[in-house]
């Protein structure tokens, strides 16, 4: 048991921090620790690193450095974008348009804003998880101050037609934000091509450190800062800058810039091998999410008659880490709202597993999952009172 190789297939939850990023961070803990807002030399070393990092991130998404605001992660970025625009434009209107498959870090701030008097329009998705740009168009009215649609879904991997939705918003002069957490570092995310005014990202989703992210804010966008105080980040975000973390994130961006494309191609091969292998080996299973417009690393499959956590635990006993759409790990009894939104019955949603692949996923690991996983499902089905197979047998 002790020597069993562990297989990590939950890269969408978090990635290991790239050793080069870890290395890049080191000088900024003790040696170059100065406060980047100070004028003396100690601070200027930190300041220089900060601004170099900002430039790197800006280049990567085709933005200007002054449009990049470093945050503590995408949950903060999302809250800052939604509440920031809401409180800044309250006088102008109160409608905010979003979708039913957004991350909680969009959904929860929206609930808060609804209580504060904003009208939140939640657009549905089709069976593949796509938002219809026409639906966005129709939902826009005079009172609309913001549209927020995620770039790629974290659970089912569906990639939204962001550029098109952005074009529609821009035509109407309505601000458009995208939660691009699952896209940045994995797909091209040039803000000029996406037609977005704001974009959220989190470092630990693309081999950067946890606890640092950024929010792109297009020049001229009115926004009330979420974290107010000192003059850091051009007053968009107060707080002594997490220089080490920011440097680590920038290093991850640098690595992504050179490796992303090849990595994506390789991941698509592994992904498709895993999807096809499982669907073939396990009867009564179905792929969730768009078959083609899909993150290169995302596999999300539902299995009838079995529950997700019990699959997850069995995988864990074999040293394999994955994720589930079942509610069993949270305090509610509702399964994944994303899976329900694409039309899955609740019991099927409970029986879904997400494997997300990454930089260090090897073909041998995929093969091992293909060997083990069908046996796990079979074992659990024998144990399941919902499984008709037994009755026939």
């Amino acid at each position, binding site marked *: *048991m*002790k020597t*069993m190789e*562990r297989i990590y297939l939950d890269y969408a939850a978090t990635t290991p921090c790239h050793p080069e990023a870890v290395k890049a961070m080191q000088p900024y803990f003790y040696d170059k620790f100065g406060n980047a807002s100070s004028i003396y030399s100690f601070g200027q070393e930190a300041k220089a690193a900060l601004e170099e990092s900002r430039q790197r991130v800006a280049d990567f998404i085709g933005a200007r450095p002054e449009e990049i605001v470093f945050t503590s992660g995408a949950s903060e970025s999302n809250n800052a974008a939604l509440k920031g625009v809401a409180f800044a434009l309250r006088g102008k209107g109160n409608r905010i348009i979003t979708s039913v498959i957004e991350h909680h870090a969009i959904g929860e701030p929206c609930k808060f804003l609804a209580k504060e008097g904003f009208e939140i329009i939640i657009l549905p998705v089709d069976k593949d998880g796509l938002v219809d740009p026409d639906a966005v168009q129709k939902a826009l009215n005079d009172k609309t101050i913001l549209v927020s649609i995620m770039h790629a879904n974290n659970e089912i991997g569906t990639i939204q037609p962001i550029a098109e939705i952005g074009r529609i918003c821009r035509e109407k002069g309505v601000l458009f934000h995208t939660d691009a957490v699952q896209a940045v570092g994995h797909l091209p995310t040039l803000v000029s091509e996406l037609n977005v005014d704001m974009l959220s990202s989190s470092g630990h989703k693309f081999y950067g450190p946890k606890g640092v992210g950024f929010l792109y804010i297009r020049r001229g966008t009115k926004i009330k800062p979420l974290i107010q105080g000192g003059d850091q980040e051009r007053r968009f975000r107060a707080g002594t800058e997490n220089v080490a973390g920011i440097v680590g994130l920038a290093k991850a961006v640098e690595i992504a810039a050179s490796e992303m494309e090849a990595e994506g191609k390789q991941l698509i091969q592994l992904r498709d091998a895993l999807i096809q292998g499982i669907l073939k080996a396990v009867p009564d299973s179905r792929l969730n999410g768009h078959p083609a417009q899909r993150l290169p690393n995302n596999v999300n499959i539902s299995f009838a*008659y*079995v*529950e*997700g*956590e*019990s699959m997850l*635990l069995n995988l*864990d*006993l074999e*040293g394999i880490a994955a994720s589930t759409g*079942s*509610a*069993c790990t*949270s*305090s509610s*009894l509702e*399964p994944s709202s994303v899976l329900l939104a694409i039309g899955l*019955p*609740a*019991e099927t949603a*409970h029986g879904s597993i997400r494997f997300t692949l990454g930089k260090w996923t090897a073909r041998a690991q995929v093969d091992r999952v293909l060997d083990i996983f069908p046996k796990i499902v079979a074992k659990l089905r*024998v*144990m*399941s*009172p*919902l499984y008709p197979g*037994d009755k026939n047998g």
Partner: protein
Amino acid sequence: MAETPLPYSEKVMDHFRNPRNVGVMENPSGVGKVGNAVCGDVMELFIKVENDIIIDTRFRTFGCGAAIATSSMVTELVKGKTLDEALKISNKAVAEALGGLPPIKMHCSVLAEEALKSAIDDYRKKQTEPK
């Protein structure tokens, strides 16, 4: 792996890995089926009763690790017990026998208790019914 603290106790993991008394029982004395697939938990419990004593048990469960482990544990706990003794087994007793459950999983032990009660009910109803 073994050193890392999973949210479940070792007992839970033992019963999850090697569940006791799994399967369908031929000609059970009583059957209880509780829970709801929509909520992610269904338990089916079979008992064989002789002279008011539960002499054998089987279960099938659709549910999470805790659901499977509590089902397995309850089938073990009641074996050899009289029906009245079995009815006194509370959900807490099941959880305790497993070395505890995470708070959000306590409902699984409730389900196990209900499944048992329902199986005993079923048996008793059958007894009073005209054969």
